[in-house]
């Protein structure tokens, strides 16, 4: 992408163009923000509410008017993200005046599917928007507070509450009864436009698991980032971090689906009351890409990643970055309570073993392990498992490679099955054994063969994808 793209910014329900000020400031010259008030909100509050298509028309008109000279992007927060998705579809369908879309930035986005939301809450929101001023103010305050992971800066908070109060109640209701429920799944299909998806670890219905289940599957090229401690109003909560992510995204957009998707049934269970908050928090944290400290050198990590792709292939789309997670674990110094006495401490064992693999790859093929074809990598791993790699000065002794590979296989699987995508892939329902009230845990009523409870069915019927036909012993 060239420099200075334009970033059209679409706000959340009750927000306005003002929501984007902090992000625009952080982005500086990296992108020029053009924040738009959607019909019925902000300075466009005099307009009635609109459905998703009409909101997209409104934005498209603005984009045409702006006539960006180079590439442009659309960012949407929550409601705005659904409009952004609709625009991307129109762009990909070749609509005139919308060429040049280079990326989507979907922040706690409302997905193409009807937005998951408790009916009670929807009704309450519909009711108070038309209530007396005092109630409206109180509820608007509560609405903003409930949608952030930690209190906003008082000025941002006050401005956001004012935005909610100046929204046209008809537009507010139009979204809650209309736009949010519109089913755009078939229309959106799979978009080729690269997308940066950010979710807040403290978000309610549109948190990490909902994004992984409902948004990512529509994006062929996505990067999903989980923002620790953040809620739903990400542009206000994390402007600095978002600016950095957007800069990276513009510089190096994802070429594929980078992170795993989740089956909707598993995401729904994860978000339900059957799952306790501590577990949900932990599962969401495991969806977040660890940002260090790490202990392997970049080349070592790349070799590790190549190794893990062979040891535990993930069918995708998107895969869990096991290497990054294992590297972070090595750096944390925590372990599983034991190791083979013959092996050096974990971080050393890993670094040495990876050097042994690279040295062997160089010797046999004149290339690094990660640059070899899959079958050549497998052949080296087989030799390593048999203790038959050549000895290298700073590597691991050949006979210890057997132990190390065993460690690696165990670590790969433990890391994989700690992640919601891993648990979902094997059809695990156990996370639903009980929520926060320890006095009223449902557990399982049925424990026998072929006896499942109604709530388990959607998880158990997640299709089993074959990676290959055989399950033979390798050893």
């Amino acid at each position, binding site marked *: 992408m060239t420099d200075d793209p334009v970033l059209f910014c679409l706000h959340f329900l009750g927000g306005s163009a003002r929501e984007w000020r902090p992000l625009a400031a952080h982005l500086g010259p990296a992108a020029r923000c053009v924040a738009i008030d959607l019909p019925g909100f902000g300075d466009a509050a005099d307009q009635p509410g609109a459905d998703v298509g009409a909101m997209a028309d409104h934005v498209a008109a603005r984009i045409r008017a702006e006539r960006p000279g180079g590439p442009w992007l659309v960012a949407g927060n929550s409601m705005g993200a659904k409009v952004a998705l609709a625009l991307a579809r129109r762009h990909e369908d070749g609509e005139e005046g919308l060429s040049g879309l280079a990326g989507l930035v979907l922040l706690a986005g409302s997905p193409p599917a009807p937005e998951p939301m408790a009916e009670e809450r929807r009704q309450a929101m519909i009711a108070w928007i038309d209530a007396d001023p005092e109630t409206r103010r109180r509820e608007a305050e509560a609405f903003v507070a409930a949608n952030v992971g930690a209190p906003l800066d008082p000025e941002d908070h006050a401005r956001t509450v004012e935005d909610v109060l100046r929204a046209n109640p008809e537009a507010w209701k139009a979204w809650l009864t209309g736009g949010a429920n519109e089913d755009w799944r078939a229309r959106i299909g799979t978009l080729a436009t690269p997308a940066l998806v950010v979710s807040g670890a403290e978000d309610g219905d549109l948190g990490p698991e909902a994004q992984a289940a409902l948004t990512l599957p529509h994006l062929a090229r996505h990067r999903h980032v989980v923002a620790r401690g953040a809620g739903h109003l990400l542009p206000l909560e994390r402007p600095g971090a978002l600016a950095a992510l957007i800069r990276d995204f513009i510089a190096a957009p994802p070429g594929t689906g980078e992170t795993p998707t989740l089956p909707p049934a598993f995401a729904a269970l994860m978000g339900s009351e059957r799952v306790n908050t501590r577990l949900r928090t932990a599962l969401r944290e495991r969806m977040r890409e660890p940002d260090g400290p790490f202990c392997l050198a970049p080349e070592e990590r790349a070799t590790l990643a190549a190794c893990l792709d062979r040891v535990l292939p993930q069918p995708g789309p998107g895969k869990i970055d096991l290497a990054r997670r294992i590297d972070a674990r090595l750096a944390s110094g925590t372990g599983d309570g034991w190791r083979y006495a013959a092996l050096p401490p974990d971080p050393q064992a890993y670094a040495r073993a990876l050097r042994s693999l690279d040295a062997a790859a160089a010797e046999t093929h004149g290339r690094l392990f990660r640059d070899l074809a899959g079958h050549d990598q497998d052949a080296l791993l087989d030799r390593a498992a048999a203790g038959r790699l050549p000895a290298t000065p700073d590597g691991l002794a050949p006979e210890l490679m057997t132990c190390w590979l065993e460690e690696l296989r165990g670590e790969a699987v433990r890391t994989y099955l700690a992640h919601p995508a891993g648990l979902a892939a094997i059809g695990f329902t156990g996370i639903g054994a009980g929520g926060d009230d320890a006095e009223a*845990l449902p557990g399982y*009523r049925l424990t026998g063969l072929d006896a499942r409870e109604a709530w388990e069915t959607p998880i158990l019927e997640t299709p089993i994808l074959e990676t290959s036909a055989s399950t033979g012993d390798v050893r």
Partner: protein
Amino acid sequence: MNLAGQRRYGTDEVVDAVVVGTGAGGAPLLAELAAAGLRVVALEAGPNFDPAAYGFDETLADEIYWTEERLSGGSTPEAFGANNSGTGIGGSTLHWGAFVPRADPRDFRLHAESGEGCDWPLDHAELTPFYDRVEAFIGTSGPTPYPWDEARRFPLPPVLRNGPAQLMAAACGRLGIAATDAPAAVVSRAFTPGGAVPLRKACINCGFCHQGCRTRAKASMDVTYLPLAVAEGAEIRPDARMHGVERDKAGRITAVVYRSGGRDLRQRCANLILCAGAVETPRLLLHLDLATGSGQVGRNYIGHVATQVWGTFAHEVGMNRGYPSSLITEDYVRPQGADFAGGYLVQSLGVEPLTWGNAVARGRGLWGPALADYLRRYNQVAGIGINGETLPCDANILTLSDETDALGMRKAHISFGYGPNETSLNAHATALMRRIWEAAGATDIWVLERVAHTLGTCRMGRDPDASVVDPFGRSHEVENLWICDGSVFPSSLAANPALTIMALSLRTAGAFLGSRTSR
């Protein structure tokens, strides 16, 4: 557990006993001594957990495991961590499986019977009343009558069978093997022994016994003996890691030094009772050069042959649901025509995904697409496993390595390997389990070689040259030092150890009290 109103003792007060460790060995004894009116302080290296806050997750459950590194060597290196020891108020009972067979009387006389192993310096009949008391207090569920022990009574009916149990029951039926609901220290109905111990609700079949029981249905020490101990006036100090002692000229222990909140504190005491488990107890003794005169500390490390057999079924098994090991057979405590001493128990197995996946990856050796595909069979697989005798031998020993931990204490190095007896027993059991799983209709059967439990290292005996403590747990060398945990086992027994450790704990408590009155 609730420690809010517990009695407190000053560190300068010479308490009657400091008990180190609050697991299966420490807790019953602590309650007994407190009930007898003694001033007792328990030091526990781990934290105090609120069961309601456990997460139903294997990785979150790391908090209840002892994950400080141990080095594993020998010809059959044993896995520790989640495979072996716990930490926190309640010790390993926080994560134990609560599978509670009693020891078979023949296992106490293994040497007399077979010339192998080591006899226990006590009569099984002597332990029976203690078993009865423990079971009535912690609440056990199981089938009365119990096929292999007419006298055994369960206060509560069995817990529900899960898929693996149903598969094993049907197969055993076909093969003419007696199998029945497992003896489980899990309450199948709401239960309290009365008094100071809060009511525990019935098991909800969540299957997370090894990750900490949120309902308190499982009998861990923090919901059974320890509330009683506190009610009787014991003080329990969490996050208190003992690492030193002070001794007088005669060699008697006068105070215990422990690290708490980054500081060393010193508790004066008249007696020290080590209940830190069969790795940490000998490690402390070796570190402090206590009772090491006979050279026996750390020797005769034993565990159990704990091989498992896995298969895939044409059923939705969903093995994570329900109490994990809900079926047992004791038909092989003395297999007919066996070419080895001792025997084994067989149990059905349901295992949570990480533990199972880890076993598949490490133990089955799968990788690549074969591994990824097999993991996705999770809901169709079931296992059976054994718990089999291991004989003490010279090569199996705990020593201190040259690497040190954060406290500057040398890490434990455990050498463990099978001798001919374990190898024969394992082969016999593996063949049997394969037969059962074939009869159950399993396909893609495979064997997971596994060692479980940490026992021995400070064995009890009458001969001070061949044991560390006397038949009641008192050190042969240091008069006011006692040991009460899995390290006193002279042989491993076919039965899983914890119920026997608890029964021994009550017995040691009685002996300790007796030793004071007779003084």
